[in-house]
């Protein structure tokens, strides 16, 4: 503690104390300590396991790159689950951008006093665990389920067999992660000053031009956060493939889980987790270094 106090003399903000820690750091201390113990330390443990002897629990006592060699060996199909996860995450981000943009625009510009209520409708599913909601889709699409039954009632052949296919996994991911795209996007669009749009319109700019030159660039920070958030969450998604997909595709997190549970190969699972973490954290830190959080969350 003494080091911190000496390296950042906060005597201006708190004149009463001699070697006072700045008030901000003092307030941040509980969060920082908690996240060091609860977030950083576990990740360090995983990283340490990634370099341990395969199929052992000799963490911090052995050092080998064997686990990474196993992953990058094309004879193993692990890279395939990586590819599926990244591919599906990218598709999810693209589809969600298209699905969420009109809604976000509506929340900011069109719905007026109804926006609050409509936002609550979109927030609420976050509080219902994803497996319950995904299971609802199983009941919808399953044989003799809601879709099948309704179509038969209407005298048609019955519902299509789309459960347990890759397509339904993608659908499940788009469905689950919608709020994570919608709300950052709404924050972003709320940053676009109305006057600017009106001024451009008065000066004769077309709607396409206003969108391309004003709305999109000014809303970009929010849209970027939404895309980053959904990509990261979707890259680690596993429930969609398990509940809806019937394991038609093995996602990367599923492979990690298998290594940790059935095959009891913690070092291999850790090495996979480390690779996923590098992708995810690298992308997050890169995008976040380009953003000013004060502007996005505060000033409106």
């Amino acid at each position, binding site marked *: 503690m003494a080091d911190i106090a000496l390296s950042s003399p906060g005597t201006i903000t708190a004149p009463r104390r001699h070697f006072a820690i700045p008030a*901000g750091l003092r307030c941040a201390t*509980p969060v920082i300590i908690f996240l060091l113990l609860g977030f950083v330390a576990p990740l360090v443990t995983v990283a340490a396991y990634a370099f341990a002897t395969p199929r052992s629990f000799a963490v911090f006592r052995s050092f080998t790159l064997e686990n990474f060699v196993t992953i990058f060996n094309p004879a193993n199909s692990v890279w395939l689950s990586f590819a599926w996860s990244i591919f599906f995450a990218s598709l999810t981000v693209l589809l969600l951008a298209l699905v969420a943009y009109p*809604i976000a625009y509506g929340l900011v510009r*069109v719905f007026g006093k109804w926006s609050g209520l409509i936002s609550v*409708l979109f927030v609420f599913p976050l509080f219902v665990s994803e497996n319950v909601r995904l*299971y609802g889709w199983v009941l919808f699409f399953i044989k003799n389920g*809601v879709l099948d039954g309704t179509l038969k009632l209407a005298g048609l052949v019955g519902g299509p067999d789309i459960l347990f296919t890759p397509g339904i996994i993608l659908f499940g991911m788009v469905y689950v992660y919608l709020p994570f795209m919608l709300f950052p996007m709404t924050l972003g669009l709320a940053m676009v000053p109305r006057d600017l749009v009106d001024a451009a319109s008065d000066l004769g700019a077309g709607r396409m031009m206003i969108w391309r030159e004003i709305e999109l660039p000014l809303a970009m920070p929010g849209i970027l956060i939404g895309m980053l958030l959904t990509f990261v969450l979707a890259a680690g998604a596993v429930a969609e493939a398990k509940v809806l997909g019937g394991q038609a595709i093995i996602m990367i997190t599923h492979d990690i889980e298998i290594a940790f549970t059935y095959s009891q190969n913690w070092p291999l699972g850790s090495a996979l*987790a480390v690779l996923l973490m590098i992708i995810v954290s690298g992308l997050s830190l890169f995008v976040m270094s380009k953003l000013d959080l004060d502007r996005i969350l505060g000033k409106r």
Partner: protein
Amino acid sequence: MEKIGAKRTRLFIGLWTAFVVIVIYLPIICGALAGLSKGRYFAFPVRTFSFEWWQRTIGSFEIHTLVTNSLLIAFIVTIVSVVIAFFGALAFARYQWKGRRLYQKLLLLPIFFPQPVLGLALLLWFNALGITPSWQTAAIAHLVWIVPVVTLVIAIQVYSFDPVLEEAAADLGASRTFILREITLPILWPGIWSGALFAFLLSWGNFPLSLYTAGADSTVPKWLYSKMVAGYTPMVPALGTMSTLAAASLLLLGGLVVMLRRRRTA
């Protein structure tokens, strides 16, 4: 021309939003139907409705344990996260200090992290520490994700808070605790309240973290998942629906409190 185009856009946005809302709630309705139909296997259209599976769910001892676990975790998570996040939010938005930008970004990292992987990492960490996973460790796991979320929720309120008020009170001779009690807390109250609601509800519905860190103990979402994978009974959609309804009532109640309080102060 411009007018008609704008009108058409508004209509499209309204219709699209309505469609997406329906799609969002469709599976929840399907679950409710399955929990309320009589047979062991779900078939649509539902032949006979009954509360049989609801009654069995309510009467089950196993489910009482689950609900107790989930509630206990959610209460602990709410109290701890609101206290830590209150100060965390002041550091995030109120004070200017050297490491603030870095702190803001690091705080977001647990949110920008796949939860199943976080759960597995915590499992390894608890194991390295020699802690047997139980509902207590699950509560810690929830906190790792929920503290940053609540900090953000409260921080948004802090941004709209003018520090001059605190300084004025200090100049007039008010003590630190007096300022906190009479000025800071009442102004930040709506943010703290919604932060607490978020904490409770997110913990209540959390599945991926509980799955890996609760050990032999189970929570409502974890139990539902284990039954979905193997051993389906209509108690699964019945309990799912009950859990959803409980969350909805809490959200309504929370919103009502905010409205009543705002009316009183207005």
